[in-house]
């Protein structure tokens, strides 16, 4: 892309962003759609082989949204966007390395995997049935906590946002739910 067209593009985005800051949803939507392929390319380039490119792109878009008042329309748009994108990509890299510290990568699965299987299909479906039964005995609030925190894998903060309950109360509810389920499972056995 030549300098002229890059400049024209930036000028266009500057205008759209200024309108977005003034509350023009259509201009904002157009701007975000136009920068989307660029962000995807940037994330994919810095983040080789990642399946969660769009997760990071969404983080960048949410961050852009949260700090859109910090853009100064008298300045170029790209450096503003690129600074935010670079920060968010670096944050994602940090999160990912923290996560992978707790995981082991297995390159080749053991060939005897099948032979070592300790549970038959029947056992598995029995287990599911027992857990479902234990869950069905829970009061509604506790069941919701199990569903959000264990089945959906939400964090306490996310579950708190979704249910409107405090983090502390969710922790207590979760603790009680697990205790009740454990008891139900033991009784069944």
């Amino acid at each position, binding site marked *: 892309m030549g300098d002229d067209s890059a400049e024209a593009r930036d000028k266009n985005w500057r205008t759209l962003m200024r309108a977005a800051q*003034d509350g023009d*949803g259509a201009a904002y939507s157009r701007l975000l759609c136009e920068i*989307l392929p660029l962000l995807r390319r940037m994330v994919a380039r810095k983040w080789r082989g990642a399946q969660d490119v769009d997760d990071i*792109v969404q983080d960048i878009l949410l961050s852009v*949204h949260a700090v859109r008042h*910090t853009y100064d329309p008298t300045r170029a748009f790209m450096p503003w966007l690129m600074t935010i994108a670079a920060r968010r990509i670096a944050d994602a890299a940090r999160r990912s390395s923290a996560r992978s510290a707790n995981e082991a990568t297995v390159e080749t699965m053991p060939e005897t995997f099948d032979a070592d299987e300790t549970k038959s299909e029947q056992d598995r479906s029995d287990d599911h049935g027992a857990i479902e039964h234990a869950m069905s005995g829970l009061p509604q609030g506790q069941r919701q906590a199990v569903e959000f925190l264990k089945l959906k894998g939400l964090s306490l903060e996310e579950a708190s*946002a*979704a249910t409107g309950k405090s983090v502390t109360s969710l922790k207590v509810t979760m603790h009680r739910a697990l205790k009740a389920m454990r008891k139900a499972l033991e009784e069944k056995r």
Partner: protein
Amino acid sequence: MRTEDLIRTLASEAKPVQRLAHPGWRVAYWLSISLAYVAMVVLIMGTRSDLAAKSGEARFVIEVAAAFLTGVMAAAAAFCAGSPGRPLWERFAPLPPLALWLGSLGEGCWQDWLRAGPDGLTIQPDFMCFPSILMVSLVPGALILMMIRRGAPTTPVLTTALATLAASALGAAGLRLFHASDASLMILVWQFGTVAILTAFGALFGRKLLHWPERPVVGSEADALATRM
């Protein structure tokens, strides 16, 4: 959630926002309120009796001016760091006055050494410095920490460090006007030391104070989860 859906949601939530003022204006706003407060504290504590004589001394003037300028430049740098896409050199703006401040204190130590030998460089405990600087920089500090939260958290640790440096350097400059302690080494250890500790403390809380929004479980997703119950 698909990214295209997210864009639609964000666009529908695009309320008009108040643009962040130019860093220059923000410094002016911060400085006017902070200076009024520092002046009030200095008046309440009572200016040092030899202030008139001191203000004729080049080293005293340079030292206080350098501390004050360090505060102003650090505030400007903190505000610039919260506006993404601004040039990187702006973040180093407090370095020249900071070097001048340290240099004037170092030169003072040297002069004390030439004048009195080892006796000129004694360190006594001065427990007034830390609480005094803290007191003078309380309002400037609270104000600037509130103000930088309006900016973008692109460099949280550096931004809060610069903000606390701004407030504490201003506090140190103010302290010189009512606390009659002139031995350069004492100032270096107790006053500059306090500024350094407060700045490090500010850096420590950077990530706590300034962070990007957590990805929310947005509207429709939360509804979908809730209705499945």
